[in-house]
């Protein structure tokens, strides 16, 4: 009782001095309003809490346990953590994830921005082109990965056939997904091809938010298209570029599906990434504690990027 009264006063509502009736009716209205609001949230929140929030908390706890999923759980302390440093596959997965991110994020970003600028102009068939660029993003990964594998087939695929007709020696031909040195390149190219359209759409949205007067002013100053791009478009798209960078980075930390479909982490450990390692440790080795520990590493990587984003955003607003 006293608690809710103090809440009302703290909220800056009329002081509760004596006029008990007003306070009570106000309080009742607040409660009713709150109940209405909770009724809106409940259908989603209950499902979300049970099937997402709960498992997340459980995952954090599991990182400090030994468990194979069927026998008793035992406390592991930091065992799983120390194991990370001895696990060669984890170390490979960590660096592969970094390599994937460093290579694919800037490349995707540049392609997406370039395309968005081109497709923001009034050209014939613009809607068709936009849709075409976006389609790989919505297409089923299983289906496109199998086509990709066939097109990049080292022996019979059209890509190497084309290289052959262009005069490349079959001995020097890239082995793509089957080749230790080319597997990562294959996966990265596939990722750029598949995701570029999505980020292009985000850039298109950003471009539409740029004030046209800025371009008119640049025209008056006699700026050419390239100067306008560098001095108006790029700076104006700053927040969008930052958002896209963060999204791409998080997404590339989480890369799994395309690797599962194209290289299965191989050859050797050449395309093994963190999520793939998590999957292997959990559903192949059934070492759930250790798998959760690797998850925790991934979580902290993503968290670091997200916190950095929030800081940057606050700075921008200030």
């Amino acid at each position: 009782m006293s608690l809710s009264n103090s809440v009302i006063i703290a909220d800056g509502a009329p002081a509760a001095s004596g006029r008990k009736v007003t306070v009570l009716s106000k309080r009742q209205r607040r409660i009713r309003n709150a109940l209405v609001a909770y009724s809106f949230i409940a259908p989603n929140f209950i499902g979300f809490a049970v099937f997402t929030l709960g498992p997340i908390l459980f995952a954090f706890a599991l990182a400090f346990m030994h468990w194979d999923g069927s026998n008793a759980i035992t406390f592991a302390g930091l065992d799983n953590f120390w194991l990370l440093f001895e696990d060669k596959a984890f170390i490979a997965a960590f660096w592969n994830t970094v390599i994937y991110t460093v290579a694919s994020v800037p490349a995707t970003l540049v392609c997406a921005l370039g395309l968005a600028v081109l497709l923001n102009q009034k050209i014939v068939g613009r809607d068709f082109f936009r849709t075409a660029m976006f389609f790989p993003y919505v297409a089923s990964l299983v289906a496109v990965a199998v086509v990709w594998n066939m097109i990049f087939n080292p022996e019979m695929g059209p890509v190497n056939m084309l290289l052959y007709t262009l005069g490349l020696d079959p001995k020097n031909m890239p082995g793509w997904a089957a080749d230790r040195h080319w597997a990562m390149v294959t996966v990265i190219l596939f990722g750029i091809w598949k995701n570029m359209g999505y980020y292009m759409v985000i850039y298109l949205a950003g471009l539409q938010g740029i004030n046209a007067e800025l371009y008119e002013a640049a025209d008056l100053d006699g700026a050419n298209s390239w100067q306008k791009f560098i001095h108006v478009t790029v700076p104006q798209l700053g927040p969008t570029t930052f958002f896209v960078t963060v999204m791409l980075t998080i997404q590339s930390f989480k890369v799994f599906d395309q690797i599962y479909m194209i290289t299965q982490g191989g050859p050797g450990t050449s395309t093994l990434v963190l999520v793939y390692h998590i999957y292997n440790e959990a559903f192949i080795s059934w070492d759930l504690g250790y798998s959760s520990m690797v998850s925790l590493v991934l979580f902290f990587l993503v968290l670091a990027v997200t916190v950095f984003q929030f800081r940057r955003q606050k700075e921008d607003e200030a």
Partner: protein
Amino acid sequence: MRIAGRKVTIGTIAIYAIVIAVTLIMLMPFAWMLSASLKLSRDVFAFPIEWIPSVPQWQNYVDIWTKIPLALFIYNTSKLTIIVTLLQLLTSSFAAYAFAKLNFPYKNTLFLGYIATIAMPWQVYMVPQFLLMREFGLNNTHLALICLQAFTAFGVFLMRQFYMSIPTELCEAARIDGMNEYQIWARIMLPLSKPALSTLTIFTFVSTWNDFLGPMIYLTKTELKTVQIGLRMFISQYSAEYGLIMAASVVALIPVLIVFLVLQRFFVEGIASTGLKG
């Protein structure tokens, strides 16, 4: 003037050249897939590529239905996708209304809970989630996948961002007219949020239809499997039947293509209104 006119033309030609080249790269795999789906397996890798097969193997599109229970897989996937998408649209827009337009205790704390999980990789908690579902006896049920995908933080976030852009005065006016909150949601917010609903529909439909790790972990019985899992099975089982694999892949792509083409005009608008400014 003439020089300026010519300059524009060269620039325009360059733009078209680049755009067409990139479009070809983006669409080539699909064209190749379509072409290969009408060929005999031994002709699939013939080079130079014969884009339009001289003798189209329509039989491929007949055979895929009998080699695997493709119709059943499509039924299962459709059922899952439709239920998940409807639940997602309904519960997300419902919750988003409260987060955008109502005041209540712990609003920010609850919303922070949602935001915090958006960046959380599913793989971080897929194992505990799997164990939880097993505990509930939901392994090998479609209900597990529905629970897994229908209540996402992303949906709530996306809808809320859109609702924030709708003037609060509109709700106030409706309240003065005697509408209750449920009526405001149903009669004002929902009709106004078509672009956001379309965006969420595309995202949910596409990700549920295309999902394969979820069904792969949860569904081991053949009669429950989805198209993507069926497709993977088919690929490993008939790994040399390239024509058939491509035909099945084309069939698996068609529903997503349709939904995407129908809703895509709302798409840029939807993404634009999901608030890049956070």
